[in-house]
């Protein structure tokens, strides 16, 4: 059993053994949690947003969604979701993409890719291992003409979701530090991670 509070803007990682659960709690509400998952025994097999979207025929993640790998295999299943809808299209913020969206004066600001790189390095993962991720608690609707938005989250203080590992997985998390859009309510806050057998 692991129970840890991940501070605002901080990274986190853990191995979640097969059949164990990982519960993520949005302690103060409206906090995006950037998330990648790998086969713990072969990290070349990793979360694939497109394979997940195709297999479930839907771009949103919610209870019942199976997180699939680049080989099409189930890595985790969403077994409980108090929020209702999560994003896997928008990817992670980076210092580099921040320069595009918000201007070069934001290059110094912390970003999810920095968290992924630092936390991934502890497990031998590098830049090549970063792919399109999940943004738990983030709301990214697509309008009829293809327009994307990052709009106010559907989450609220204390809402949680629970994932079950289908194989031994390695989970990488960035508690999103973005302060330039509403994905964190312009105010990053802590989350709680609970791994239970």
């Amino acid at each position, binding site marked *: 059993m692991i129970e840890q509070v991940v501070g605002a803007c901080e990274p986190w990682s853990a191995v979640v053994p097969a059949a164990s659960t990982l519960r993520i709690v949005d302690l103060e509400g409206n906090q995006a949690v950037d998330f990648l998952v790998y086969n713990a025994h072969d990290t070349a097999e990793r979360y694939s947003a497109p394979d997940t979207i195709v297999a479930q025929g839907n771009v949103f993640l919610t209870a019942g969604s199976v997180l699939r790998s680049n080989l099409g295999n189930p890595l985790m299943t969403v077994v409980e979701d108090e929020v209702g809808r999560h994003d896997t299209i928008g990817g992670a913020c980076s210092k580099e993409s921040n320069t595009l969206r918000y201007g070069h004066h934001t290059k110094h600001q912390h970003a999810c890719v920095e968290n992924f790189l630092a936390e991934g390095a502890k497990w031998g993962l590098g830049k090549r291992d970063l792919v399109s991720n999940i943004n738990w608690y983030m709301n990214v609707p*697509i309008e009829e003409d293809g327009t994307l938005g990052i709009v106010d989250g559907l989450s609220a203080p204390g809402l949680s979701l629970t994932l079950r590992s289908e194989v031994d997985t390695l989970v990488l998390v960035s508690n999103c530090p973005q302060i330039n859009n509403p994905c964190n309510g312009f105010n990053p806050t802590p989350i709680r991670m609970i791994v239970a057998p």
Partner: protein
Amino acid sequence: MPTVPAGSWPEPPEGVPASELTWAEVIAPRGATSKVLARGTSLRLRDVYGQACAHLLLYNAAEPWERLNVADTVKIPWQAYLGLGHPLLSDQGRVLATVIGDDSGRHDALCGGGPAARARFVNAAAKHGLEPRDLPPSVSLFQGVRVQADGSLAWLGSAGPGCAVTLRCELPLVVLLADVPHPVDPRPEPEVTALEVLAWRGESTKPDDPLWTSTPELQRAFENTADYWEARA
């Protein structure tokens, strides 16, 4: 099959001297190919018979750990559907290629290529020293998918024979291409037809091009790309 030398291709695009062609190849149905292209190259993909599906991956040939990032490609322009003027962005806040011609309008950046494209990309990537870890989600051209209000996927399919998409390489690129059915093609035995590939020398997008200043985000992406290339070239 490739036409070698490319300049012997019988039908260069209008206004392009045959001597400027650097790549001419017809990818057979369910085939794949790859090439390294210079910055400024125009790359035209044509769905000759109307049932091609061009799965595409791009890498910065100078530093191939910089590669296509489909999330930034849809997020930065706030647009999920690829089309004219859309940048194909890397993970480094730079433009790998821009869409400068498109008479199909039916493309996809959300569904990847499935097992068939992946198998071909594994081998194509290997020929450039790249491994399965180097394969990010890909985009595909000529077979459209749209997202409904509830998030579900709706199949559009092909816009018909003869459609072409032209990309301008904004950096030197490793280009991987596979012509296999789209993973959400609902037909039990999807038909696939040949994909024609032509490339010719040219210039990268310049600041006096209307595309450069079309949005503040794209202007900064072009500026980042020029800044990077001028420092290292």
